[in-house]
């Protein structure tokens, strides 16, 4: 008998995107408000997990065709490269810089090197959470 989780699927479709956008907000808000790469990453992971749980793994794998172990490496690389960047200016490893710019529509915005570093952290956290959970889930022995 094929069960049809209509409610679950419909709600997941809406909710997971709300969580996803909230997680991205959290990621960017991190510098001045609660949030940041770690929290944002965990929230993204929960949103994706919701997708994996309510639909089956195969389907979502087709929709999100990422190899999470590569994403771990990419995240670490981004974090390390932003750290190395400061060596070019003669500062110690992982010195972060920030500068304020005025952009026509958005007004004054702040650009920091902490953001790409945080992006690295974000990616690693998402990938680690999903990789470990999916590996356990797929284990059918």
């Amino acid at each position, binding site marked *: 008998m094929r069960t049809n989780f209509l409610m679950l699927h419909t709600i997941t479709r809406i909710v997971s995107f709300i969580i996803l956008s909230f997680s991205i907000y*959290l990621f960017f808000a*991190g*510098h*001045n*408000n*609660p*949030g*940041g*790469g*770690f*929290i944002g990453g*965990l*929230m993204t*992971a*929960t949103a994706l*997990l919701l997708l994996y*749980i309510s639909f089956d793994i195969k389907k979502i794998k087709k929709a999100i065709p990422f190899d*999470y*172990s590569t994403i*771990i*490496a990419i*995240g*670490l690389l981004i*974090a*390390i490269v932003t*750290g190395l960047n400061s060596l070019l200016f003669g500062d110690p*490893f*992982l010195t*972060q810089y*920030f500068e304020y710019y005025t952009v026509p529509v958005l007004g004054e915005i*702040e650009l*920091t090197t*902490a953001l790409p*570093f*945080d992006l*690295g*952290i974000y990616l*690693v*956290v998402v*990938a*680690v*959470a999903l*990789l*470990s*959970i999916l*590996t*356990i*889930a797929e*284990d059918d*022995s």
Partner: protein
Amino acid sequence: MTTLHYLVLAPFIMALLVPFIYKGFRHIHTGWFVLALPLILFIYLLSYLPIGGNTLNPEVMVVPWVPTLGINFAIYLDGLSLLFALLITGIGTLVVLYSIFYIANKKDEPLNNFYVYLMMFMGAMLGVVLSDNLMVIYVFWELTSLASALLIAYWFHKEKSRYGAQKSMLITVTGGFAMLAGFCLLYIITGSFSIQEIIAYFGQIDLTSEVLVIPAMLLILLGAFTKSAQFPFHIWLPDAMEAPTPVSAYLHSATMVKAGIYLVARFTPVFGGLPEWFWIITSFGLLTLIWGSISAVRQTDLKGILAFSTISQLGLIMALFGLGSASFIDNIAEVAIIAAIFHLINHATFKGSLFMVVGIVDHETGTRDIRKLGGLMSIMPITFTISIIGIASMAGLPPFNGFLSKEMFFTGVLDVASLNIFNIQTWGFLFPIVAWIASVFTFVYCMIMFFRTFTGKYQPEKLEKEAHEAPIGLLISPIVLASLVVIFGLFPNLLSYSMIEPALHAVLPYTVGLDNYINIYHWHGLNTELFMTIGVVLFGSLVFINLKRWQESTFFLHERDPLNRLYDGGLDGLVAGSQRVTNVQLTGLLRDYFVYMMVFMLILLGWTFFRYDAMQFNFTNVSEISPYLWIITLVLMATTISIPFIQHRVTSIIAVGVIGFLIALLFVVFRAPDLALTQLLVETVMVVLFLLCFYHLPELRKEKFKPKFRFTNLVISIGMGAIVTLLGFSAHAARHSLNFSPISQYFVENSKPLAGGYNMVNVILVDFRGLDTLLEVLVLGVAALGIVALIKLKMKEGQDV
């Protein structure tokens, strides 16, 4: 950066380019491109030779590397470094040329690997001999070990190659570590890593007053002895012969194994004059000399003979440096140092040519076994001529350079044995005897090598290939070396002023009344040395003629060095032992691992409390506890206590979840939104994880434990709780009594001006403590990969990683 700095770095740059050259010009042998580099370096270094009014003014040229620790890339070129640098680049050129013909450019031949390792070695070796800074020397020193192991395992599909590589690596790196410790001790004594500064410092102080001098000396000597294959560490060298012959000629006879000798020579101005230095180096050198020459006699592999011969000759040079260190007391011993330097050059020439000849024999006949060889004199006339020159020089026959240095060796031994210092009169009479016996055996193995290979009956049925003369390309390098043997033999004073004297000045800088006039000549009159040589020839021939009678004795049947048993047994024991230790602690039960961690923390924290009397209570300035907090904390405690009594898995999971959410609530009460958010998310993810694992887990069974086991667990858990609570109280109390200002104030003040963010927690994470975060996520990544490995590996019962 001076030209000499680039000279050291050039081979490394070449090593980077080699793979591209190999890929880009596949049809041309990569060696041709590599060949240019050592040649250019050699010619450039020649310009430093003090000839034609040119004088060598050694000075330290510093490029800061880690200046705060006193580690600088400092180059110091004096006579000794120049001699070694010339050997490295000169022999290097010949070896590269030889390798072009030796290793054919076949499709599956990883030539790029070969030349990358070779260039890496050359750069590292140049770095060792040209650096003035001990830490830099150490780095390059280990790089040579690494390159050597990689080259030995060049044909890594052979079991013996891998064994030899591992052995050489383990032994030389162990010595290298000891040497590092010795360098650190020197730093503690002198406060400098610069050799020249250390020499200057040691010139001023009384050596016997420093306690650390002897340990530092012993550790450095351990490094030198392992690298230079001194007894009992020599066992790696015969196994290193699995490397391609060009490598053996280059690393394992001409250059790398002489790094230890270089180190001893370099440190002679530091430790020279100490009786311990004299006795240790002399006795180990002589022991190695005699052990190597006796072992060489019973080898059947041509390369094995050469390996043990190299060991014995290294012992000879080492002993000469030991004997020569007496010249800090009495300059009559100077001749030993001159002999050592001279023999160093001679050994590189004749041993290099012999290795290449053996390579040719191996290449053209397919075997190196002297039982299968014979009668090659007429088939390979050029090879024969080269090897007779090399062998005669090695045996110490006139008019070749080996004779000269052998005579000087006897002179040095006799002179030093007659000295009246360091209690030499008690055991000194042994020096000439050991030297003479070892020379007899040297003569015998030279005869074996010569007669078994080139005379006798040609046995084509035992050979894999039809023997014929080698192509001219293979012959060029040994011919060059053999002609050097002859030239240095006939005109030894070519070297006296250009190389030996500057090197002598580097080894003995402060000796008074240094004899500036070095004159090496053949005829000394009818003196003891000459009679010793005649005795060696006569007695050696006698032994060789009667060798057949002894060949069946047990001595001859044990070709392998008995010390190998010790090494193999030790290695097996180490592996088995560590496996046993690992198995004792790794039970596979998470519970046990928790116990280890907790007990460790308990002991550490408890001891610290006790040792520093840190336990304090002070409840001033404590804020009111609101009713909410009371409720949350009480519920939290109640849930925690209930967990061990829950029989059902789902219930316990829920209880753990309750704890997590309550802690999140606590964070909210304490106004820490970031922490609360993180905690909530972690709890959510945990729920999913538990859901998944739930499927795999067996029914929670009530385990029966012995009361003793339960009691220990109870003690540990209560102890842990108590210690953490006490830590909290004490930290609070110490804040008032010791008047610590909390570090949080710094972050409050600086998060905006220094890092441009208002959220302190996040600013700490990404900026102030960015490295911590980076390493934390690294740990996360490793853990995730560990989970993947654990699950995908699917090990069966009884299998081990």
